[in-house]
């Protein structure tokens, strides 16, 4: 390429916003595209559940207990005669909610606290950091189990428990980002110009720390879906008769030999959803990384 055309090429690339550049880079990675597509698909399934589920997910039938997949029940029936396909479709809601709401809670607490710790420094930072270290030193699942047991077994409480247990990760990440951005020239300039602290944080610091948070949040959703399944294994997640893939797996493990379809479909769904979030998160990390032009 001649220097002229090279300049033109780089110039047009320079004109696009960071968001568009990231989007373009994301689409270049096939695994990330796959992940995004699957996530969107599951969200669509979850939203359209009332329309696409062939049966009522809690409708029992004494005569159709643990029936193998057939034309009527494409995924078979479970231990008290409910249609597995309908439960998988409706379960998408619970599992997606578990993932998204937990992370939303972590961000809602973690982001402001991390901002405070990173920006304020001093004893405030010291106190917050020690408490965060303490929470991180306790095994995540143990914290979640204790919290869920304390609040009582239910999907909502499981989400709160997972959200709170994952908060320290976001506090730490936010704080680290704030610390590195705080010393940038534009922040110092803003301070010299007399901007209020709140202004600086919201207008200068926050937008620059968003990319790694997005990546972490996406990966955390994947971990949260698994965490809900784990809590359900111990009886602390979504309670019957409402479906969630984790609690379906928990029941299904007792019937692996005589009714494997009860486990295959929710297991496959969790695997696909979590894998997709992981692939998407990895892709986002690549796309948003300023070092890789």
């Amino acid at each position: 390429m001649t220097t002229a055309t090279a300049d033109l090429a780089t110039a047009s690339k320079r004109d696009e916003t960071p968001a568009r550049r990231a989007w373009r880079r994301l689409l270049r990675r096939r695994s990330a595209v796959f992940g995004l597509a699957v996530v969107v698909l599951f969200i669509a399934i979850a939203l359209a559940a009332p329309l696409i589920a062939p049966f009522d997910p809690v409708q029992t039938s004494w005569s159709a207990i643990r029936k193998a997949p057939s034309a009527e029940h494409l995924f078979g029936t479970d231990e008290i005669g409910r249609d597995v396909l309908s439960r998988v479709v409706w379960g998408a809601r619970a599992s997606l909610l578990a993932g998204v709401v937990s992370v939303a809670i972590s961000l809602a607490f973690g982001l402001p606290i991390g901002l405070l710790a990173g920006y304020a420094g001093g004893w405030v930072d010291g106190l917050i950091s020690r408490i965060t270290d303490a929470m991180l030193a306790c095994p995540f699942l143990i914290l979640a189990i204790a919290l869920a047991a304390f609040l009582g077994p239910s999907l909502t409480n499981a989400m709160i428990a997972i959200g709170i247990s994952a908060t320290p990760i976001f506090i730490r990440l936010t704080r680290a980002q704030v610390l590195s951005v705080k010393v940038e020239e534009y922040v110092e300039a803003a301070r010299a110009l007399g901007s209020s602290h709140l202004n600086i944080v919201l207008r200068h610091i926050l937008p620059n720390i968003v990319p790694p948070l997005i990546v972490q949040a996406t990966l955390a959703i994947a971990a949260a879906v698994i965490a809900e399944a784990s809590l359900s294994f111990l009886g602390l997640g979504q309670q019957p008769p409402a479906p969630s893939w984790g609690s379906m797996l928990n029941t299904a493990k007792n019937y692996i030999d005589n009714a494997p379809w009860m486990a295959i479909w929710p297991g496959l769904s969790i695997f696909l959803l979590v894998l997709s979030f992981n692939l998407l998160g990895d892709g986002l990390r690549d796309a948003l990384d300023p070092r890789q032009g």
Partner: protein
Amino acid sequence: MTAYLARRLLTIVPTLVFVSILIFSLQQLLPGDPAVVLAGEDRDPSVVAYLHAKLHLDEPLPVRYLYWLRGVVTGDLGESLRMQKPVLALIEEKLPVTLELALIAMLIALIIGIPAGIISAVKRNTVWDYAANVVALWGLSTPNFWLGIMLILFFSVSLGWLPASGYVSPFESLRGNLAAMIMPAFVLGNAIAAVLMRHTRSAMLQVLSSDYVRTARAKGLDERKVVLKHALRNALTPIITLGALEFGTLLSGAVLTEQVFTIPGFGKLIVDAVFNRDYAVVQGVVLFTATAYIVLNLVADLAYFAANPRLRA
């Protein structure tokens, strides 16, 4: 360096205090009267009263915390009221098991994760990259209790190659021990392999596009030698420190994996104690593992500093 070390050591104390408060309140605030739970199905009132007194349950929460704290600093972590056994003895019993499981899991994670990360970085955006990604990620994407049961059904029941569950001490039979540990270690190591893969990959990518490697390539040195010698060596440091951190997490006990495979380690001990309201066990073991985790963190950070002279400035 010594100033840094001293500063870090000082921060350990308040962190541990917070850990103790956190785990103590999480336990003691759990609903249900532990004396009733521990008294068993007969619920003999005299037993309930006896346990009440032993647990100081009639005293306010802060007082109970101080009783416990006093025990901790004198080396008495209390005892399991369900098994009438001192917590320290239980820790002594379970530590080798958990350590061994953690070590083997780390080994498996390294064997899977690092090559996957290297392949993914070197053959970026090709089928190899994609495949390595999925291989490393599939462990992170499946609930480990699920993977465990699948493995048991396949390798133990169908094929009969490995024992379904349980633990054999290496002193009793090394082969039996390894046979019993391989599946649970694999389940645990899988998830960590993914994290290792990610870090290896990004560290490798960083180094591969650096001036150092480009120069070496320009000089005409063999591509593979360049990769292995320079890139890997530089990427190793963050991997080692990360490895130490994940090891710390493993030490806390692979809660569900131990449950499924009936490995008598910390994870199983803690979970059962939570459900049985056996407070002292949870408090003691979590405090122990949290301390180990914090110390490992410190060691990892120091190693990172030691390996990177540039950061010491």
